């Protein structure tokens, strides 16, 4: 192959970069939730303070939201439609609706370990991805919400052969959770004698428990409920004794207080008008027994 002279390299790269950026926004990627225009309620465009993030998003007509694509009940790609569905997705849609009913949402996948960096680098405008609010994360980003409070629980083989009733019983047992979750840290702190195993995926933990390699799986109760649904109630059961509170918040860039209070106002609105409960019942509510009270928004 003929070599490209190095003096050509820069212009060629610049042209390629221009191409990449100009083409990027035209085509909606798979997983794009088209909210704008399909709703029955054609509200007039809300007004936002000049120079605010909300005004900028409204003017652009699109927003990029980070969520998980593999989190049952919260954000999971539907294999039939290719669209991502779940409670996080519905919350994002309800929030964006208030920014502008015509704004299109582009959902991108943000697994646990890239959430902060995606917000900091601006590749997403907000993250709604079973994102537990904590102080270490608040150093780098800000949280609106919480919009849901989960609790860490324990899943055991059906029939609970070892009689695990709570977190104290995990001492001396083989416990599994997923890499990069706060669940691991909690188990280490609350049951220091537990032998902790960590895998990349929750289904890895479930497989390991089915094969008898671990005695228990511990993480947020809603995720465990999803696993029980997936593997069957004759295989696994959830102990039902939550030992932490995991407030799920909406991650936004640090210092954007205007956007944060806007989202908080909107969350309180949907808590009050029943849209939050309806979204819950369509998603998480399909496997949990009753719809909880919405949490109190934390305006720190």
């Amino acid at each position, binding site marked *: 192959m003929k070599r490209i002279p190095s003096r050509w390299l820069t212009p060629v790269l610049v042209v390629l970069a221009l191409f990449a950026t100009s083409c990027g926004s035209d085509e909606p990627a798979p997983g794009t939730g088209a909210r704008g225009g399909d709703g029955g309620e054609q509200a007039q465009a809300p007004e936002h303070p000049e120079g605010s993030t909300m005004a900028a998003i409204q003017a652009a007509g699109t927003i990029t939201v980070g969520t998980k694509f593999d989190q049952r009940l919260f954000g999971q790609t539907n294999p039939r439609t290719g669209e991502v569905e779940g409670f996080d997705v519905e919350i994002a849609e309800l929030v964006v609706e208030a920014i502008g009913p015509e704004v299109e949402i582009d959902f991108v996948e943000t697994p*646990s*370990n890239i959430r*902060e*960096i995606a917000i900091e680098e601006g590749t997403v405008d907000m993250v709604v991805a079973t994102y537990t609010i904590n102080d*270490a*994360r608040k*150093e*780098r980003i800000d949280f609106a919400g919480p919009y849901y409070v989960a609790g860490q629980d324990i899943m055991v083989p059906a029939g609970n052969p070892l009689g695990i009733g709570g977190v104290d019983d995990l001492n001396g047992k083989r416990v*599994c959770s997923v*890499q*990069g*979750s*706060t669940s*691991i*840290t909690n188990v280490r702190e609350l049951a220091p004698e537990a032998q902790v*195993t*960590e*895998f*990349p995926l929750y289904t*890895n933990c479930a*497989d*390991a428990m089915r*094969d008898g*390699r671990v005695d228990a799986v511990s993480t947020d109760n809603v995720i465990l409920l999803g696993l029980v649904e997936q593997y069957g109630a004759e295989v696994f059961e959830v102990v039902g004794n939550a030992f932490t509170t995991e407030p799920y918040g909406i991650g936004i860039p640090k210092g954007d207080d205007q956007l944060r209070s806007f989202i908080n106002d909107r969350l309180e609105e949907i808590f009050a008008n029943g849209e939050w409960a309806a979204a819950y019942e369509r998603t998480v509510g399909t496997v949990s027994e009753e719809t909880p009270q919405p949490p109190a928004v934390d305006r720190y």
Partner: protein
Amino acid sequence: MDVVLDNLDRIAGGLGVTVTLTLASWVGAFAIGVVVASFRVGPIPPLRVLGASYVEVVRNCPLTVLFVVFFFGFPSIGITQPPFTSAVIVLSVYTGAFVAETVRAGVNTVARGQVEAARSLGLGFTQVLGLVVLPQALRSVVGPLGSLFSALIRNSSVAYTIGLVELTLTANQIALETAQFVPVFTGVALAYLALTLPTGLALGVIERRVAIRR
């Protein structure tokens, strides 16, 4: 870099697992590689086919896939090993295929006359291979084998997929607890360099020591 300094003991622990895993797997890979290379250059057709199939199958599978299949798939056929043993087996089998090809290349550099001379002295196939061919073949491929060893150090990080707490998974844990990915992973990249760079230097020395001077 405070996060790195505060967690130095954990990083050292992870580094220890990475080093043990690499050394144990290298022993396995080297043994597999020499045996398979002997099969492939040997006179017995079934063994030649066996060696060739092994190399082609293993070499053309992504390492992550091998890890997941062995650790999460094999229990259903009754093979259940703990993470460390599984990692040693998978890395040995994987790297062994590359070692086999490298050793075979080395065998091909040994002059035909050497084999003919050895056979005319009455040596059998194993003696020719073990006493005459392999000592010369291995010396000529010290450099490529060194690259494989260095690749093995880095490949050992894939063991995180089966939950083995080696250097990379340790870094992941610390990064998540502190939400500081860049300093932690920079520190860990330096730790890997601290392993691979001296390996490269040591190999240069070994290569010069064992060079065949004519």
